[in-house]
Structure formats: structure tokens, C-alpha cells
């Protein structure tokens, strides 16, 4: 087997940076390393990986038949390292105050990004499984890293227990597929299944169901979503932001690889599963969100609702629907990170995270109120913002594949979401602040991150051509 390690340079950079951050943290007294310096080191590593990733665009190679280095991988490399950089810069102040082991935190984030990238580029079931576990284990620990917050430990425990069950389901499903197809590589499974599955139909169906369940857990699709609100609420804010971005994006990358490749011949068997799951997810996520009073739980349920929208692309699986999915995913990540960065900045100053405590923010910090408003309006799909354009394209491509009813359900649920986002906006703009009503300022990093992300929301909302183009080139690999 010919192993060309130069194909994995971005991941190697990320991995080495993770080790470097851990070591620097271990010797921080001797080397006089400040927590901010650790953050800087992590950002440098992520930036290096991002730049390195740019050299692999339009490459079409693979690493020992295990990992594909193609445009799809390049898309996720850039997306996930970008998320990593934004999360670290947007939250370093928070991390220094509220996180127990700063170095550990950054190296976990770096490692989980490696896992996320490998999830989207794996060409083989076991590689995919190992990457999922790399991502998940890093996050299990990261969720419970909050200092002096009892909910953090609880959330970590819940997440690791339920996550373990889901991994077991997934692994069992994978082994059933391996048993029936006789191989773990995607291409061989596809050719084996395309000949028909008469002899082992039951085993394949059970395997499929277990895989859908296991991955549904990772993507927090209903009915496997129970962990999400608790983990989101208990985890330190930056981890919540990261969970909602990287974990979700990587899972959808993996889902696209698997369902457009090895499992494509079985599309009639899993289409209805995903259709049911998609409708249930968007309905439950959005309706339950209506009752939330904590901003993190609200965003948890709203992100569950968003997962329902994204799952639609699998029901209408096609090249067009997949590129629309990646476009929506990119728009969603940008928007979500903008909202979370703003909430982190708000929390840094006030320590609050109840929706009612956003009261009067438009008086005390109008800029931040504007960023949150732009973000929430974008999440609910309001025009001129990313959410409108990407949802429009995603829903239209689903409708064009003959699933107009599904698109209609999605639009209804998307409108429901506006109601609970307005509850937050109402608090900020309609009421006078309680308590200290003097204006305050953000840190330069806070201004920078939220400013760039909000500008990106508007750009993607009006001129989404370049992102759509990139998404299109990425998914063309899958359907060639």
C-alpha cells in the first residue's frame, strides 16, 4: 500500500499543534506561558492548517484507500479550520475565566477538528468510526471542563453515556453492513449492494436502521436528540458554539459521503427513514424551542430544528440538493457562530444567560444587540441575511426533486422559529435595562469576530454565488 503522508499535512499540523499546546501548558511555569499565548499558538496552528488546505483544492487522490483528498474534503477542511479559528478567537477571554485547564481545552478542540475532517473524508467504515470517536471523545471531555459549574459535569456525564450507546449502535450497524457486503470500503460496499440484497435483506435493514440511529444521535436528530439541550446548557459557552458547528458539520459531511456512496443502492430503504426523521426533527425542535427561557437551551432546540431542514437534502438526495445542503450548512455555521460569539461577549460582561436578562441590551450595548438581532433573524430565514438565501436554495432544490410537501413543512417550521427568536429581540429592544444601565464596550477581539461574521451573514445573504460554487464543486465529486 502506498501511503503518501504529504496528503495529510493540514491534519498533521493540527495534531502537532495539539501536542505543542499540551506541552507548553505542562511547562507553563518554566516557560512563562500565559493562557492567551496558548490561544495564540492554537490559532496559529489552525491558521497553518487552513492555509495548507488551500493547496489541496482540485486534488483528487486518496490516502491508502482510507481517506479521500478531493474537493469535498477541501471544503470541510477549510470550513472546520475556519470554525476552529473563530471559536478560539471569539472565546479566549471566556476560556481564561471559566475553563479549568486552558491548554487541555485548546488541544481537545484541535484534535476534535482533526476527527471532524477525517469523518468527512473517510472512504472506509472503520476509519469513519474512529474519526467519529476522536471527535466525540474530545468533546465529552470539553463539555465537562467548566470551572465551578455543576451543570457542566452533569452534561459531560450524560453526553458520554448516551454517546457511548449511540457509538455501540453505530458500530453494530457497521458490522452488519460489513457482514453482508463483505468489505468495509465504501466503493466495494456500493458495488456489492448494487447487485441486490435479496439474501440478507433483514440484516441490511437492521444495519441501516442502526447506522441511521447512531449518526442521528451525533447529528442530534429526533428521536435521538435528548442529550443536546442538556449538553448545550451545561457545557461552557465556547464548547456549545463548537458543538453546534463542528460536530454538526462533520456529521453531515459523513452522512453525505455514506449515503451518496456505499448506501446509495439502498436509497429506497432509507429514504422514508430519513423523511420521517427530518419531519420529526424540525417539528419537535422548533415547537419545543418555543418554551425555552435559557438562551443556550433555546439555541439547542433551534439547532435541532435546523438539523431537520438539513436532513431534507438526503430525502431528495441529488447533486443539486447536496450542494444546496453544503451552502446552507456554511450559512448556518457563520450565523450560529456570530450569535454564539455575541452571547459569549455578553456573558463575559454580565455572566447572564437567561433570555429575560437580555433586557435593554440595545441601550447598554447597541452593537451587540444588533449582531444578535442580525444572527437570529438570519437563523429564522429573514431576507438580506444568509438564512433566507440558503434556505431558499435548499428548500427549492428539495421541492424540485418532487418533495414540495416536505419543503412546505420546512417553511412552516421556519416561520414558527421566528416567534421564539423575536422573544429575544423583544427583550433587547423593547424594554429598558434593569440595574446598571451604563454603556459598556467589547474587547477588540469581540468587535472583530462579531463584525466579520455579521458582515459575512449579509454577504452570503445577498451574494452567495462563491460559497454556492465551492459547495457545488465539493459535491460534484460525490456524484460523478
Amino acid at each position: 500500500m502506498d501511503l503518501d503522508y504529504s496528503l495529510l499535512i493540514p491534519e498533521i499540523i493540527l495534531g502537532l499543534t495539539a501536542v505543542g499546546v499540551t506541552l507548553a501548558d505542562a511547562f507553563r511555569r518554566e516557560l512563562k506561558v500565559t493562557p492567551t499565548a496558548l490561544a495564540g499558538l492554537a490559532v496559529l496552528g489552525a491558521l497553518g492548517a487552513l492555509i495548507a488546505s488551500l493547496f489541496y483544492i482540485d486534488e483528487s487522490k486518496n490516502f491508502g484507500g482510507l481517506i479521500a483528498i478531493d474537493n469535498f474534503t477541501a471544503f470541510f477542511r477549510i470550513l472546520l479550520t475556519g470554525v476552529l479559528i473563530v471559536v478560539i478567537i471569539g472565546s479566549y477571554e471566556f476560556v481564561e475565566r471559566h475553563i479549568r485547564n486552558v491548554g487541555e481545552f485548546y488541544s481537545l478542540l484541535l484534535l476534535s477538528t482533526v476527527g471532524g475532517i477525517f469523518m468527512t473524508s473517510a472512504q472506509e467504515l472503520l476509519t469513519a468510526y474512529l474519526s467519529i470517536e476522536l471527535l466525540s471523545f474530545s468533546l465529552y471531555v470539553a463539555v465537562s471542563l467548566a470551572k465551578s459549574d455543576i451543570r457542566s459535569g452533569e452534561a459531560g456525564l450524560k453526553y458520554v453515556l448516551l454517546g457511548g450507546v449511540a457509538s455501540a449502535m453505530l458500530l453494530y450497524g457497521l458490522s452488519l453492513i460489513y457482514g453482508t457486503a463483505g468489505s468495509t470500503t465504501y466503493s466495494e460496499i456500493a458495488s456489492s449492494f448494487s447487485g441486490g440484497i435479496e439474501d440478507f435483506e433483514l440484516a441490511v435493514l437492521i444495519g441501516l436502521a442502526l447506522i441511521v440511529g447512531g449518526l442521528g444521535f451525533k447529528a442530534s436528530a429526533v428521536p435521538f436528540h435528548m442529550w443536546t439541550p442538556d449538553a448545550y446548557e451545561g457545557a461552557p459557552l465556547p464548547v456549545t458554539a463548537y458543538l453546534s458547528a463542528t460536530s454538526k458539520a462533520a456529521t453531515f459531511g459523513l452522512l453525505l459521503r455514506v449515503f451518496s456512496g456505499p448506501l446509495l443502492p439502498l436509497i429506497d430503504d432509507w429514504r422514508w427513514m430519513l423523511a420521517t426523521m427530518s419531519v420529526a426533527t424540525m417539528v419537535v425542535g422548533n415547537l419545543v424551542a418555543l418554551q425555552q427561557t435559557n438562551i443556550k437551551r433555546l439555541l439547542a432546540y433551534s439547532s435541532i430544528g435546523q438539523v431537520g431542514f438539513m436532513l431534507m437534502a438526503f430525502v431528495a438526495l441529488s447533486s443539486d440538493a447536496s450542494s444546496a445542503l453544503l451552502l446552507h450548512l456554511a450559512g448556518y455555521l457563520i450565523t450560529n457562530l456570530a450569535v454564539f460569539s455575541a452571547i459569549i461577549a455578553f456573558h463575559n460582561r454580565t455572566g447572564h444567560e437567561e433570555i429575560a436578562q437580555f433586557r435593554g441590551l440595545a441601550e447598554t450595548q447597541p452593537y451587540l444587540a444588533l449582531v444578535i438581532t442580525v444572527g437570529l433573524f438570519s437563523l429564522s430565514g429573514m431576507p438580506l441575511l444568509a438564512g433566507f438565501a440558503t434556505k431558499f436554495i435548499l428548500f427549492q432544490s428539495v421541492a424540485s426533486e418532487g418533495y414540495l410537501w416536505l419543503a412546505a413543512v420546512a417553511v412552516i417550521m421556519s416561520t414558527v422559529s421566528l416567534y421564539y427568536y423575536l422573544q429575544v429581540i423583544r427583550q433587547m429592544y423593547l424594554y429598558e435595562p434593569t440595574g446598571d444601565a451604563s454603556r459598556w464596550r467589547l474587547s477588540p477581539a469581540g468587535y472583530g469576530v462579531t463584525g466579520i461574521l455579521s458582515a459575512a451573514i449579509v454577504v452570503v445573504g445577498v451574494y452567495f454565488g462563491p460559497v454556492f460554487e465551492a459547495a457545488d464543486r465539493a459535491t460534484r465529486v460525490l456524484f460523478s
Partner: protein
Amino acid sequence: MSDSDGYLLLALFLVPLGTAALLMLIPSRERSAIVGLTGLSSFALFVASVYLFVRFDFEGAQFQGVQAWDWIENVGFLGEHGIQIKVGMDGMAASMVLLTGIIGMAGTWVSWKIQHRLKDFFILFYVLLAGVFGTFIMLDLFFWFLLYETAVLPMYLLIAVWGSTRKEYGAMKLMMMLVGASIMIFTAIFGIISATGTDTFDLQVLFNAGPGIPRDTQLLLFPLIAFGCGTLGGMFPFHSWSPDGHAAAPTAVSMVHAGVLMKLGAFGIIRLGFQLLPEGAEFWAPGLIVIGITAALYGAISAMRQTDLKLMSGYSSVSHMGYVFMGLGTLNVIGMSGAVLQMFAHGVMTALFFLLIGGMYDQAHNRDIPNFSGMARQMPIWTVFFVIGGMASLGLPGMSGFVAEVHIFIGAFRAYPVVGALAVLTAAITATYLLRMFAQVFFGEMNTRWSDLKEITYAERAGATVLAASILWLGIWPAPWVDRISTTIANSIPGVS
């Protein structure tokens, strides 16, 4: 109108957007700079809209000033010219652009006296204007809908922050009902694009492909458009946001909302419903008539029962918009032209009403009709303008309302004589509640409680003058409107007699 006028059409929605962006850069304490910028911008828009209306050649092509810029193409399901910024204007759009130019300017003038966060108000107000102008002239379905929604988006904050009576309730109800209605438009657009199988959102391409959509699909999609856009147009029974929203909204927002935004709904029914789905429109037209006449009667009777001036005006809007839907349902050129004329006539008239009610409420903080009497002596100028608006509303000959209503009534009599008769009855009810209100508020013994009320401000007088002039102009010399609108209707809607 030459194609180079397309650049001016583009400016119609780029200028308000640019104004909003510039406003963000001005510090909020620089009131005079804010006033100057918005005054300049609104005047430029007014001049441009008059110029475009005059330049429109009703004997020429259906869409004039067509200019297109490719925006996103050849990616995903989008083919060549997938999404473009494509502007162009027909006679109907020309009238609506003129309406928006007039009301936008008058609305800007009367808003200058706002004390609370003037800058933020104008930023949202100009985003709203950009959305309205853009929807009227956009010939690309993606941007058409984007701008349509843009016009709705700022309403929530405009009402909830700067409004009055039950503002939070009114704002939330309005927002949820309008965005909820958009569900139907969204779905219909998805349905239209997938049914035509086109890979572009170019409306002109869709106008050619639309009539080829299978009849069953058209019958399914037309009601989605009719109710979806109709909700924004205050269509019965989805009108209930409108009186509450108007009562809660600040003056300029009520003006733009009742004056222009509700017309956006009716405009959407014509653009996407009648022009894209003619068979569906033909099948459902009797339904529109029933809804229209019901709304006209219901709105008029409800208006009789109101004591709040703004609520009365709100229900009167529901009634007058009922005429519009009735006119559309007649499916003949005269009735449908009447509907578009009514959109213009009701726009300027209702904007004048809300301007005057606002000018009085700002001083009195009271709008209860029974609380006022003998105001003609206290505020004579105010009264004169109010009477002009009222006479137009009840369809006095020589006023805008008369021209529009005559068209609609003739069209209705031709299609269904019973409906025509009911429509005339509605006009009588309208006259009843307006004249009764006049008698109560303007005449009789003066209520000394209001003896310190002053005449409306000069800005308000100027705005009212522009609006009243439009009412009289359309009433006395309606030819420019009738020519432009009726040729557009006759040429662009298949199956209209």
C-alpha cells in the same frame, strides 16, 4: 422609456439602501444631518418616480427600462441567468412606484419630529422603502421575493419600538401573520419553479413558461398566492392584523403600511397569480369576488362601530382593499384596471388620513371620536385636509376614489350585477360612517378640553398638500393612470376580456 432608464430603476432601491447605510455612519445626536440626508434622499426618490411614471410609454413594450445583471449562474440547479438583478417596469408598476415615491417623501417629512431614536427609525424606514420599491420593479423571482420579505421585516421593530396603543401586541400579531402568510408564497414559488422545470428565476422567462403549467397544479398554486399575498393586502378573513397593526404603528409607518405595503400584496397577486397562473386565476376569480365584496361590506360595517380614529381608518382600509380584490375577480379590463387604480387612490387617501390622525394624536394623545367636537374652529387647516381625504374615501366625483370605484363598479356589474349592487351599497355605508365622524369631530360645540391644540406642523402641511394634490389630480385628470394601467392589464394577463 428607453432601456437606459433601467439604471434609474436600479437606483430606486439602491438609493434607500444607501441612505440606510449612510445613516448608520451618522452619530445619532446630529439630528440636522439626519433630517438633511433623509430629506434629500426622499426628494430624489420622489423626483425619480415622477420622471419614470411620465417617461413610461404605454404604447410601447410591456416591460420598459429592462436591464439585467447576472448575479449567480451555472451552479447547483441554477442554469444560465439563474439569478439576476433584473429590473423593468410595466404600467402597473409605474403607478405603484409613483405612489411609493409620494408616500415615502410625505412619510419622511412627518417623521422628523420623532424624538426617540430618530436615526434608528429612519434606518429601518429606508430599508422598508427599498424593499417596497424593489418589489415593484424586480423582474427576477428570487430577488422579487427577497425584497418583498425585506419590506415586511422592519415592521416589527418600527411598530414595537415607536408605536402607541398596544404596540407589542399589534407588532407581534402583524409580524407573525405576515410571515405566516409568506409560507404560502414560499411554497407556491417552489411549486412554480419545479412545475415549469426552468433553471432560472427570470420572471419574463417564467411569464412565458407559467401558462404551460398543468391546470391542476395551477388550481392548487393560485390560492396559495392569493391568500399568501392577500394577507399582506388585508384580504378578508386574514385582515385582522391590519387594524391592530395600524392602530399601534407610528404615523409614518401607518402611512407607508396602509398606503404602499398593503398594495404590495395585491400587486403580488397580479404578478405571480394572474400573470403566471392564468388558468388558476380564471378558476378562482369568483372566489376573489366573494372575498372582495364580503371584505368591503364587513370592513365598512366594522368601521361604523369604531370609536378610535385609527381603528376606523384601519377597517376602512380593509373595506377599500376589498374593492381591489373584487375588481381583480371581475376578469375584465375595466374592473381590473379599476383595482389597480384603487390601489393608488386608496394609497394616497389612507396615507393622508394617517398623517392627519398622527398630527393630532401627537398633541392630544387621544383618538376617541366621541371625545372630540368642533375641531374645525380649532384646527381649520387640519379639517380641510381631512375633508378632502374623506370625500375621496367615500367616492365623491372629482376625487381619486371616484375614478377607481367607477371602474370597479362597472366591471363588477358586467361580470355579476348582484355584486355591483352590493358594492354600491358599501359605498353608501362608507359615506355614512365618514359623514357621521365629520359631524361629530369637526362641527358642533367646541370641546374646551382641546383648546390648547395647535394646528398641524408645517412639515405635516407640506406632506398633506402633496397627498391631497395627488388625490385631486387623479380625480380630475385620470388619463395618465388609466392609459398606463389598462394597456398593461390588457396585454399582460391572458384571458382577460
